[in-house]
């Protein structure tokens, strides 16, 4: 069939299928610089008859003016600087249609320097076409782009091995490239649907099977794209509906936002996180002048809506709405895999602002766990993340955040970081090793009033001869917490103090016998110990607690329970020292993989930032350490 008559058939198909009902698929074209992305787009347009009249001629004229051979890239490289330097600087979009559907083609720059523009383009797409130069093979950006596509959540990927004409359409060489790149993609969890040998310049396997590679039995690029699906709205997942704004129009208080996942109906009970307020949906607001359009009774993922509630509760932008039985995680600390685009490197200890859905909050980089080399996936450590690097980090906020793990709910499991005025990086969330703190902060009982004691704290302290309080020992397993706690208890008891040790193993036999070792139950274990020790303190006693309590959030909660009577004692010893002691043989088991999530080995220990007292047991003998503690108690607990 001639090109013109083929185009006519296509247009006839388009006309019987009105645009409003046709699928739109957004495809990003990525790959290493000079591997022929823009050329492939140009060829696809030409061979499908999608070029506007006169466009071919005008590109030809531009090339002649510059004295260069005909260059398809000029179709999309709209900026003078791009044409002059022959590289794509910023991402661009162009539209075409096949019999099957409409396409938005997103061209993304392959030059490392313009990674932020590549991400801008790629993040908008439903699927990706990755281009590799057959003569050059898999290069740095081929891998990096593959890795970033995965990180951005793009799961449909086809690979075009381009410039096959330069290697005489050799099957063997193609097979080698295919194997190498498939191995890489598989190792990061991406399965390429197709790997297609093409020549964009010659037009082989772009739209037409030209006969240049009879050994290839798979689809052309266009056929491969037609097999992809537009990203479906996640309507069947738990509801995630971030509050974007609250309007007061016409005496209605409308909570506006876009439903990101799931659905809800009028009458549903919703919970706002992290404030944990609840209310029912009274109405779904809308404005339309189209006759016969009825007010909606339900809203689904993808829709920008407004609702009113059955009672007036104060909610604001940034809260995440869900149903009561499937709420998001609440935490002030989480793990993230990030890509960094900032002009300044990301630095450990530095503060940034996070944008998580519609929420903005200050956060600090607590640690940089590793820098990921996207070429060979090796890890290295560093105190900072440079521009265009990928890293695993731990982020801490000063307030509770409502979020999800990226693998469970992508839209509420990703965020950007702002440095000064700029979006400087993006990341996806993992809670590995960290607890959901929702149950720890939610009070389920209401209508409770505290009973006032008839006896004052002063009166109790006067009778006991000392104040009550909590000595909260924290540190690695083997740091000497229990040894010190027991020795201190004995010394203080002999001196006439009312003192009692709460030890990890002991409370797990009774009070906390119903708790497992999951992150949530570990946090609950510490919460209960915090509350119990606060009761001891209020009763006028000195409670010594001996728990690893590796998380700052848990210790802060214990501090809040005992208020001013809380004394955080950091029993400090490095992992090597503790491992050499290994009194219970736990390190050996952890190293052998018999205990998972072992603090210091396979789970984090977050050092106290402002401990009232630090006792370094690696350099201080035990008697000296106990002496130091006794002095501290005598000074702080005297009446």
């Amino acid at each position, binding site marked *: 069939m001639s090109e013109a008559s083929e185009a006519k058939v296509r*247009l006839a198909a*388009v*006309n019987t299928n*009105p*645009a*409003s*009902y*046709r*699928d*739109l698929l957004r495809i990003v074209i990525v790959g290493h610089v000079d591997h022929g992305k823009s050329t492939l787009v140009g060829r696809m347009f030409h061979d499908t008859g999608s*070029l*506007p*009249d006169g466009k071919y001629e005008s590109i030809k004229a*531009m090339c002649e003016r510059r004295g260069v051979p005909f260059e398809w890239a000029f179709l*999309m490289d*709209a*900026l*003078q*600087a791009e044409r002059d330097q022959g590289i794509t*600087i*910023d991402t*661009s*979009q*162009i*539209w075409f249609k096949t019999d099957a559907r409409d396409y938005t083609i997103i061209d993304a720059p392959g030059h490392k320097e313009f990674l*932020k*523009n590549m*991400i*801008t383009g*790629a*993040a908008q797409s439903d699927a990706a076409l990755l281009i590799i130069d057959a003569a050059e093979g898999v290069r740095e950006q081929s891998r990096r782009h593959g890795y970033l596509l995965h990180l*951005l959540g793009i799961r449909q990927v086809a690979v075009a091995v381009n410039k096959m004409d330069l290697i005489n359409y050799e099957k063997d060489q193609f097979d080698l490239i295919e194997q190498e790149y498939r191995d890489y993609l598989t190792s990061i969890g991406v399965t390429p649907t197709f790997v297609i040998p093409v020549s964009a310049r010659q037009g082989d396997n772009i739209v037409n099977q030209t006969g240049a590679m009879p050994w290839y039995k798979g689809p052309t690029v266009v056929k491969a794209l037609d097999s992809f699906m537009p990203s479906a*709205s996640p309507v069947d997942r738990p509801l995630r509906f971030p509050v*974007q*704004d609250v*309007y007061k*129009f*016409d005496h*209605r208080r409308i909570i*506006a*936002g*876009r439903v990101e996942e799931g659905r809800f109906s009028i009458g549903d009970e919703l919970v706002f996180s992290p404030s944990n307020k609840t209310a029912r949906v009274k109405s779904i607001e*809308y*404005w*339309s*002048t*189209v006759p016969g359009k009825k007010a909606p009774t339900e809203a689904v993922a*993808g*829709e*920008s809506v*407004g609702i009113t509630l059955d009672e007036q509760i104060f909610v604001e932008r940034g809260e995440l709405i869900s149903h009561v039985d499937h709420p998001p995680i609440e935490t002030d600390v989480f793990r993230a895999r990030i890509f960094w*685009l900032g002009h300044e490197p990301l630095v450990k200890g530095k503060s940034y602002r996070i944008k998580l859905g519609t929420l903005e909050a200050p956060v600090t980089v607590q640690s940089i766990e590793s820098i990921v080399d996207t070429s060979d996936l090796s890890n290295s450590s560093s105190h900072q993340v440079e521009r265009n690097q990928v890293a695993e980090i731990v982020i801490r906020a000063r307030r509770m955040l409502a979020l999800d793990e990226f693998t469970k709910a992508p839209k509420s499991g*990703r965020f*950007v970081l*702002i440095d*000064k*005025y*700029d*979006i400087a990086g*993006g990341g996806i969330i993992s809670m590995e090793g960290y607890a959901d703190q929702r149950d720890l902060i939610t009070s389920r009982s209401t209508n409770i009033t505290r009973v006032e004691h008839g006896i004052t704290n002063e009166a109790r302290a006067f009778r006991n001869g000392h104040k009550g309080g909590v000595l909260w020992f924290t540190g690695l397993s083997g740091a000497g917490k229990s040894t010190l706690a027991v020795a201190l208890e004995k010394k203080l008891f002999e001196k006439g103090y009312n003192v009692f040790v709460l030890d990890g193993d002991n409370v797990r036999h009774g009070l906390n016998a119903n708790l497992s070792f999951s992150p949530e139950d570990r946090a609950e274990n510490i919460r209960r110990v915090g509350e119990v020790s606060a009761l001891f303190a209020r009763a006028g006693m000195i409670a010594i607690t001996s728990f690893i309590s590796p998380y700052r959030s848990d210790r802060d909660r214990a501090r809040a329970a005992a208020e001013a009577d809380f004394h955080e004692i950091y029993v400090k010893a490095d992992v090597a020292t503790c491992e050499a002691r290994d009194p219970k043989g736990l390190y050996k088991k952890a190293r052998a993989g018999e205990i998972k999530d072992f603090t210091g080995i396979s789970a984090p220990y977050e050092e106290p930032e402002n401990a009232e007292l630090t006792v370094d047991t690696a350099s201080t003998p035990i008697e000296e350490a106990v002496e130091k503690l006794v002095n501290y108690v005598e000074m702080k607990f005297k009446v």
Partner: protein
Amino acid sequence: MDRLDQLESQSIFIFREAFNRIENIAMLWSLGKDSNVMIWLARKAFFGHVPFPVMHVDTEKKFPEMYEFRDRYAAEWNLNFIRELCPPLDTIDDTLPPAARSAARKTEGLKLAIKKHGFNALFAGIRRDEEATRAKERVFSPRGLTGQWDFKDQPPEFWDQFKTDFPPGTHIRIHPLLHWTEIDIWLYTQREQIPTIPLYFAKDGKRYRSLGDKDITSPVASTATTIEEIIEELQTTRVSERSGRAMDHESEDAFERLRADGYL
């Protein structure tokens, strides 16, 4: 949700982000099909209201039908309407080719109006598919102190997280229709029954596909007299939308230079 619902929802999301994050914002109304859809989408986003000024930067060289349309719907849609005039042509760089000079006059008028009202940001109804440099635009697009566009170093924009923090003095263009195409605009105009200037429909074998100043805008050959026929025409045409806009075609980079300097 069909395709128009998705486009509409995304535009509403953009409107609400901008309205929440940025103070002193206004909408540019060019009176054309796109900016009419833009007003419509604002009313959807804000439940029948347009909660910011709607400004027409007037070259006084539009078609009479456009002025009639403006005066009627500014009142009917209950807009907080502002009209600002462009400065006289003889104050504009006379080394520019004629159509570009005329367009530069509009840019100048726009800058003066922004200064006069102290707007930090403007909604503009440009679309990526109109023209190749617009295809490279961001939804939230910062401009320098003199309104210029630094297209070589645009901010990253992904996951619907827009750049909403700026050093003082930055001006922002917000593009709620960036992801729409010409055919989407007509399909939506049809579905929502949005009023349209009659110049878009064919008379004596010609119609305007894009409306600008009288002296630098020409009609294209067409027999489409209804929106249905326009949609049908667009599904088969290979003529570009702005072929009738003279300033795009005076030199290879004419439009890029105009945009870098602050043209829409």
